């Protein structure tokens, strides 16, 4: 007879495998678009406009935006993977396959989050490879870069999960990415240093969590940041802890998935 931990491990692997197979099966919808979009960003903002902008924080503009663009694709894809997959699971009722089985909530959450991280990672790697056609990427701190990459992916996979739990219609899963996630990302210092902003807007930008991730990631790659990296890491970890607890609470109460 298997013990519970063996069952949990296999259940976790099953969810992760299922999630990876899902986005790989539809790679034209999941992997290709971010690659094309980012290539366009590199060409238009990096080359065409970037050459006229000149330097930012001592770096060529294209070098400056590469970390932000990589992280932006990680954020969007980690979020999109979990929100669409878990919402589909609810919509077609095959969440019941998990509810009836001896799978604890933390395994369900972990499986979906790792699935989101897997897609975020795959897209992030693709975008990084594309960026090599436009810049000579040298990494200041591999450890920090990798850490922020993974933590950001986890955080937005969790956010996508919460969105999916509350979502009742397809509109509900597109409202947050369109009206919240995209503005936060674009205003999170992907394309500019906040030092360019007037003081009030600099202060307001500090309320944007994406700013901390982008800057810490940029620090990992280029060694420059608008904010304190330690503070940023504490903030990211804090958000992850809050969203994890909240997601588990939603699952245990059965919000959106049980009567």
């Amino acid at each position, binding site marked *: 007879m298997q013990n519970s931990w063996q069952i949990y491990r*296999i259940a976790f692997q099953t969810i992760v495998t299922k999630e990876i197979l899902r986005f790989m099966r539809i790679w034209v919808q999941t992997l290709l678009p971010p690659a094309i979009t980012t290539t366009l960003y590199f060409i238009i903002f990096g080359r065409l406009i970037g050459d006229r902008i000149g330097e930012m924080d001592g770096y060529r503009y294209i070098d400056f935006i590469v970390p932000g663009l990589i992280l932006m694709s990680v954020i969007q894809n980690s979020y999109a993977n979990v929100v669409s997959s878990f919402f589909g699971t609810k919509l077609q009722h095959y969440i019941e396959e998990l509810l009836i*089985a001896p799978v604890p909530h933390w395994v369900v959450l972990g499986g979906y989050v790792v699935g989101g991280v897997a897609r975020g990672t795959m897209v992030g790697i693709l975008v990084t490879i594309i960026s090599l056609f436009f810049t000579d990427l040298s990494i200041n701190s591999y450890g920090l870069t990798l850490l922020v990459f993974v933590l950001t992916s986890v955080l937005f996979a969790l956010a996508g999960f919460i969105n999916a739990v509350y979502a009742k219609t397809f509109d509900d899963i597109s409202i947050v990415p369109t009206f919240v996630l995209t503005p936060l990302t674009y205003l999170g210092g992907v394309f500019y240093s906040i030092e360019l902003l007037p003081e009030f807007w600099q202060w307001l930008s500090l309320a944007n969590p994406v700013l901390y991730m982008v800057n810490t990631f940029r620090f990992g790659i280029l060694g420059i940041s608008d904010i304190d990296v330690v503070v940023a890491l504490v903030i990211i970890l804090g958000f992850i802890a809050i969203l994890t607890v909240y997601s588990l609470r939603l699952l245990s109460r059965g919000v959106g998935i049980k*009567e």
Partner: protein
Amino acid sequence: MAALVIKDLHKTYRNGFAALKGIDLQVEQGDFFALLGPNGAGKSTAISIIASLTNKTTGRVEIYGHDLDRERDQAKRLIGLVPQEFNFNMWEPVVEILVNQAGYYGIPRKLAFQRAGEALQRLGLWEKRQTQARWLSGGMKRRLMIARALVHRPRLLILDEPTAGVDIEIRRSMWEFMREINRQGTTIILTTHYLEEAESLCRNIAIIDHGRIVEQTSMTRLLSQLHSELFLLNIAAPIERAPDLHDYRTTLVDSETLEVEVDREQSMNQLFGLLSAQGIEVVSMRNKQNRLEQMFVDLVDSAKEKRA
């Protein structure tokens, strides 16, 4: 040990609707048990609670002695559910649906593929194993849900309307399959609107109405409570009016079909003797109404009268 014990189970939804009003139910190990009731009676709610798809309000559920609240994992490992509605990923290949379900029960991937293959072969879906579920016919989708419910070899299988919308040929083959797995030791709880199906398959029965169990007994005992049965007799030569058969009430349906009501105390031999004496030859006969259906309607009507 009982396969399922339910004690004082209540469910009140947020809108205030009380779907279950204190159900007590016991299903013995190895039984083939029918849980019947009209639409909205509470069958699906009870099943959803047993399968952990719905949170109960109060009460207790035990699966093979494991309390669903305190020994959740052990209890859940023993249950398989075939729900009323299709609830699988329509975009996934058939075999992956089964392998994933096995994985959720801790079955390693290699063994899961083996188990999935066996289940698909038993249910005649082997050829469709790489087909996306959405391309299967209605009957195949039902069989896929049965295969999925069996892939972890549950000891208690709950079938919620498993043959709804399935043609008679497939339905009969599914009955045979259910009988076989029950013979092999799996306890089965069946809900169905085909009462002929319940009468043919189940040994024990509970009837639920308005969130309460109105009857729980053996199928034989329940059917023996029928006061009378209506038979339709096909006769060899046409007649113009219904014959006088003393205590038997007769109605001529058409010139070659005679309806006869036979009370529990009356004998069929005597009926045939009376018909024969009047020169009426019976070619074939059948129940006008399924016996369980008749009993079911009587019980639900009587529950309605009590409520009124």
